[in-house]
């Protein structure tokens, strides 16, 4: 999944106008980056506590984007398809957990089966069940989407599959908005567990309702920690899967050359299905965590996070798993710092400016390798 291989011929690197554009672009970017660093350093010394608070919210956002970006990048690495429906699978993940919690009280099942369990065990086991259910449903959904919408187009031009992906995305958003599916409402999300906040001030204390944390303290919540830990764990396990297991080897082979892999006896269809399933399970997981952190859901929930995770994947080098992760963290910080020190409405603009700049200056992204020509 490291190499982004295509049958396209790469553009000769010595085109003059292109080179000059890139040079000007780089100089401009360097100046801009320098300016940003100065502003940030100054803001840090102005109010270090506020700065830390903003960085924490950026981390929380970045790690959620990382979960979504992994799916984008895995699928792109293998089938060279930007799966625009990915953000909507993320949305479905949030809704599945919502229904599991409100309709079926699934997060309380351990208490119903074993009434004597301590509440903390009930919460942990119940929440994990809800998350696993969401992941499973999303995986199943993605495999179905792949079979129905993408597989028939595997030999068609890439643009056809891309447009189909956009179509699937709209289908999920507006089919979900029907009253008998998810309804178009903004639904207050009921969490499987409560969010607890702590503040750091002479040690770590819990924030009590109706009580302001003291001036100069930094607050963080359990959901922020859960998002970070889960995201890092998923990243590591994915690395392990791709590098050390048979299916990972098959994935890498399929990414490198689909036809050759098939000739070597790899069941390419299965590999692709598994890739979609894993990527979408991560999106479902991200969806649940996102809804817990920002508890209001509707069917267009996945659009912006999906697009931003896509930018993150491009920034890190689409097709590269560590790239997606690093790109997502950068996106999270860029957004939070923009919101903190420029203005909140600017943060989407900055996010997509990053996309444009990356495509202009380094289209392969941070970790991406330049396209190699096939022999």
């Amino acid at each position: 999944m490291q190499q982004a291989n295509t049958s396209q011929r790469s553009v000769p690197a010595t085109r003059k106008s292109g080179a000059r554009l890139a040079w000007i672009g780089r100089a401009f970017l360097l100046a801009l980056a320098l300016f940003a660093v100065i502003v940030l350093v100054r803001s840090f010394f102005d109010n270090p506590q506020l700065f830390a608070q903003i960085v924490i919210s950026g981390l929380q956002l970045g790690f959620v984007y990382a979960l979504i970006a992994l799916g984008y990048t895995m699928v792109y690495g293998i089938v060279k398809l930007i799966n625009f429906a990915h953000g909507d699978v993320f949305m479905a993940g949030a809704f599945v957990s919502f229904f599991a919690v409100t309709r079926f009280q699934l997060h309380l099942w351990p208490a119903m089966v074993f009434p004597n369990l301590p509440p903390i065990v009930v919460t942990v086991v119940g929440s994990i069940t809800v998350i696993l259910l969401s992941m499973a449903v999303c995986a199943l959904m993605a495999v179905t989407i792949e079979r129905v919408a993408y597989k028939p187009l595997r030999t068609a031009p890439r643009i056809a599959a891309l447009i189909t992906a956009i179509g699937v995305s709209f289908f999920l958003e507006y089919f979900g908005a029907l009253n008998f599916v998810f309804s178009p409402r903004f639904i207050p999300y009921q969490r499987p567990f409560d969010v607890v906040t702590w503040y750091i001030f002479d040690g770590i204390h819990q924030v009590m309702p109706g009580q302001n944390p003291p001036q100069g303290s930094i607050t963080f919540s359990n959901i922020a920690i859960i998002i970070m830990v889960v995201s890092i764990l998923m990243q590591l396990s994915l690395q392990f899967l791709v590098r050390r297991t048979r299916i990972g080897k098959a994935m890498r082979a399929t990414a490198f050359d689909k036809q050759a892999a098939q000739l070597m006896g790899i069941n390419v269809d299965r590999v692709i299905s598994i890739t979609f399933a894993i990527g979408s399970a991560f999106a479902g997981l991200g969806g649940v965590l996102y809804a817990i952190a920002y508890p209001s859901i509707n069917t267009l929930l996945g659009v912006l996070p999906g697009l931003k995770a896509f930018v993150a994947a491009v920034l890190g080098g689409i097709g590269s798993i560590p790239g997606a992760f690093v790109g997502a963290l950068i996106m999270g910080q860029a957004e939070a710092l923009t919101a903190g020190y420029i203005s909140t409405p600017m943060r989407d603009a900055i996010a997509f400016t990053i996309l444009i700049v990356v495509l202009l200056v380094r289209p392969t992204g941070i970790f991406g390798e330049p396209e190699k020509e096939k022999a």
Partner: protein
Amino acid sequence: MRAFKITSLFALAAIAVSACASAGGTGGDIKVAILAPLSGPVPTFGVSTRDGALQAIDEWNAKGGINGQKIVPIVEDSQCTPDPALNAAHKVIDQDKVSFIIGEVCSKASIPISDYANSKKIIEMSPTSTATGVTVDQNGKVKDYIFRACFIDPFQGKVAAKFALGTLKAQTAFIMLDQSNDYVKGLAEAFEQAYTAAGGKVVGKENYTGKDTDFSTILAKVADAKPGLVYLPDYYNIVNLVTKQAKEKGITAPFMGGDGWDSPDLDTKAADGGYYTNHYSPEDTRPEVVNFVKAYGVKYKDDKGQPKTPDALAALAYDAGNLLFTAIKDAGSTDTTKVRDTLTKISFDGISGKITYDADHNPVKSATILHVTGGKVVFDSVVNP
């Protein structure tokens, strides 16, 4: 071939002309369009508005209609968004030939509708669009055929500022607003003006966009500024997100907002301790309010089959319908110019208070302050202009 085309064009033109002529005639039914955001960002507003207006129409029809003419409602989804709203207005005006429109809810959708309706001399009665620009154009000239049933943004902002300083004794305030939303901007500006004029201090003002879900950065600044009050005059979907995240950050300052908070989907646990200005309270004991609440509950049920309590949207849509129909009855005609003249001089006792119109077609009426507490929204006080 060409000759054929030309004759067919003439034929079409003739049909169009005759269609126009027949639409102008009197007698028969009175078509009234209800433009409401049944989908889009605030669907509960749309449903309440439609139901409230239909309630008024049903009551009039049960009494034999207006001057013997039955009222026929035409409901369109205008999505609280300028383009779909304008399309819906074109549809009901050009295709269905209505002369009267009840709607839209959102100011940003009502403004384009009002411009088109006014140019066609169609009466638009917006139940709940509070922005100044709905009834008055950019040059400050009143749009002759456009009215509303609610008070306007500056008034809500003023009342909130008075309440914040007087009752809550909050000397400092933090304002959060969505710059792209006329309604939110209008309330925030009016609040800021009235609040600073009365001696309050605005310690921070932050923008966001209506699509945001993560408010942690702004709330970090709120926690840093420690204001006595946070003014957040947005719709319930944003209020739910912001107040929940604020509670988790340990922010204790009360939140205050406008009638955008008024929704069955407001998360009363998250918004606990908050206040908002509104048009009416179902707990009001005036007989017309009691009767309306009862009749509405008989007609509309919630998910669990319980009688629905009409929110302010429903009450205002009901008032808007009754205002319009009373004016048509008093004018004795469906001629929109005559109805307009009657409306400007009307004195009407509605659910949301006694309504008369000022020169800019804005009602002169009272405001209600509601308090979110213990998982419920309770009546706090009435503030007169």
